[in-house]
């Protein structure tokens, strides 16, 4: 069974394609890494699959449901950590988690219990009473992950979950995600630039380039005998030489 299946999925901005004719096949229970250079269309794809953006053409089936036909039932069964996060900065961490749970249909008491468990699991217990606006970027990422998990989704979308957070936090989140997939509890669809982390995590991989799917399959099939980084650079383009900046080293101008 497929957790995500798209057919001819296309999104145009001002007539230009950001994503074009995308045909994704993400098996249920997979840990799927969706890779691509900046501006390739990764975030646009996640936004279309989670209902933040409407596709210009094409179809998407998520957990067996046509997204265009019944978006609410899909939303109830997925968890999302979008690019830029979706946190209310003037709520405390504990309030954010509990109210998020209530929005996903949990009873208040149950949402509160799960919020406390998540705060402990994400090592945010001591900061549960702080406003989200006072959280560091890494803490916000962890909190957003907690929000995505509180209702027990079958499919988790993570857009750049490791961007801007320290190695210890990355390690903690990675272990948690691995445990979730290993227990068969959910499918994870993740985008990331950190190829070493992705290589250690995922079971399946898709590489997008200029809005089109350039490669897809099990990690071993796509990688062949190379590392994921080598395959990625080969697929999306060559390494570029660094450009020197003429004025650096001249010192600041006198005021």
């Amino acid at each position, binding site marked *: 069974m497929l957790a995500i299946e798209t057919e001819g999925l296309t999104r145009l901005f001002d007539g230009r394609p950001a994503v074009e004719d995308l045909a994704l096949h993400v098996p249920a229970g997979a840990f799927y890494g969706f890779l691509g250079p900046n501006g390739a269309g990764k975030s646009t794809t996640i936004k279309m699959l989670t209902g*933040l953006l409407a596709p210009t053409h094409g179809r998407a089936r998520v957990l067996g449901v046509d997204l265009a036909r019944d978006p609410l039932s899909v939303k109830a069964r997925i968890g999302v950590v979008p690019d830029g996060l979706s946190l209310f900065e003037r709520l405390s961490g*504990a309030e954010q988690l*509990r109210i998020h749970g209530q929005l996903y249909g949990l009873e208040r008491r149950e949402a509160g219990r799960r919020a406390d468990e998540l705060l402990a699991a994400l090592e945010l217990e001591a900061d549960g009473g702080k406003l989200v606006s006072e959280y560091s970027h890494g803490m916000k990422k962890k909190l957003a992950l907690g929000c995505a998990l509180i209702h027990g989704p079958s499919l988790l979308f993570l857009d750049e979950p490791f961007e801007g957070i320290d190695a210890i936090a990355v390690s903690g989140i990675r272990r948690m995600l691995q445990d979730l997939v290993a227990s068969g509890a959910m499918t994870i669809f993740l985008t990331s630039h950190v190829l070493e982390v992705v290589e250690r995590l995922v079971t399946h991989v898709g590489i997008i380039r200029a809005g089109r799917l350039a490669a897809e399959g099990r990690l071993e099939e796509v990688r062949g005998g190379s590392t994921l980084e080598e395959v990625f650079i080969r697929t999306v383009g060559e390494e570029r030489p660094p450009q020197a900046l003429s004025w650096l080293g001249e010192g600041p101008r006198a005021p």
Partner: protein
Amino acid sequence: MTALAALRAFSELRLLLLWRRLKGRGGVAELVSKVLLFAIAIPAGAAFAGATAFSAFHAVRAGQGIRATAPVAGLFFGVWMTWTAVALSLSEREGLDLRRFLGYPIPPGRISGYGLAASVIGDPFAVFWCLLLGGAFGGAALARPGAWLLPLALVYAGFTLATVALVALVQELLARLVRGRRGRVLGIVLVYVAVGAAVSWVAGTGRSLLEVVRAIRALRWIAYPAALADSATAALYAGGTLRGVAWLAGLLAAALLTAVAAHRLALAAALSGGGGASRTAATGGAGWRLPGRLGGLVEKEGKYLLRHPLAAVLALLLPAVAAVVMWRLAPRLAEEGGEVVAALPIFGFALYAHLAVQVFWLNALGWERGGARTWFLAPVSLAEVLLAKNLVTYLFSLALFAASAAAGVALGGAPPAWALGGALLVHLGAAPWLLAAGNFVSILNPTAAPLTVQRGGNVTALSGLAGMAAISGAGGLFAVPALIAIRVEAPWVLVAGSALLAALGGIAYAALLPRAGALLAARREAVLAAITGDEA
């Protein structure tokens, strides 16, 4: 960086940002609205400037006595009162956020100075009041040309500077007061305890507090720029140039001190990081005990609104504005009109309580930033999201109305029961009309709003104009039964008419809410682009 280079860079930055906004979605409508606001303010200001010129001309000719002093005091105290009340509670004035510019090699004092100048030039209300002052100066110049006009011009300039600096200082003081949760709660509690004590005292003595307050002449110094400018101008009109210049020196010194104090507070706040560091619910079980999805939505909206510094500022300010209105207006209404006319201020408070919170219903999604994505990711009905926002805004506005009415009663005595009930009905009845209109404005023209006590940038010029239209429309609608009631001297007409309009509003709101939800779903990309910065 020289002062001129910095000013040029600022001007270029503002022009570029304006140009980008105009080129973007809805830019032309935004420009038209901005021009329209000034197009309303300037002719209106010019028309009233004719009146102030006329009275100043005669006051200068009179030189001394009540015919000379009354127009001067009326102009300065009137302009001061409306300027500070509107700037603090309503006006979406232009301004500069000091925090954004701290990284640049520009003296912060200069940025504060540009901010004060922008708050006069960029605000149609401020332009209106400046035109009134300009009219008075023109009238005085025509009446008696001469060198004395130079200190007179400085009095008007000093009064303008002192008033904008005072507004900035009060904003900074209020921001400091409301930054800490304890300070905020304490401040609000103190105000309301004082109002409560005043009400009980009035009830005990049978004497209106207004009578007592009006007898205390020293209270005029609360309006210090107006009182100083009034004394300086009266002396200059009477030919006492030396005395006038002495008052002018006092005014300029006070204006400068106020501006420096406002700048120091703004700088300290900017360097401390600005935001409020209140600790709040630390566990999942804590917080408001509202069950279900709608409960969660209402709790989120309630906490968001109450944690906005503007909410605390309004809670402190509106009763004070109501008290000042009763102080100046109520005795005249009681003398000149009948029972219905005397009760009109309380009906005005009912509409003003909606007007004061207009930023929360005209740009209901503007403070959510990244959180706005939740509405489109979570399995929630968007109509329910809007309903929760509307409910919370209504309850907050109702609390403000109750506080303003209490302050009015404390100062001016209790109006008849029918007036209190009728005003409550007007407040309730206007809400569905305004909130339904606000939902559509919020969805069609959202903007990312700052979480600061300064009001600039909370709504766009177009939304501001739409708000004016909505408030005028609602005011016009509810004025019909009021006018009939005054005409036939039958208060029950006002109450019955308001009840009928409230019922019609409820029906219209129920019909429009699902449409607003559907519109929000259809416009999600544009809304997220405006609020979160997501490219659509």
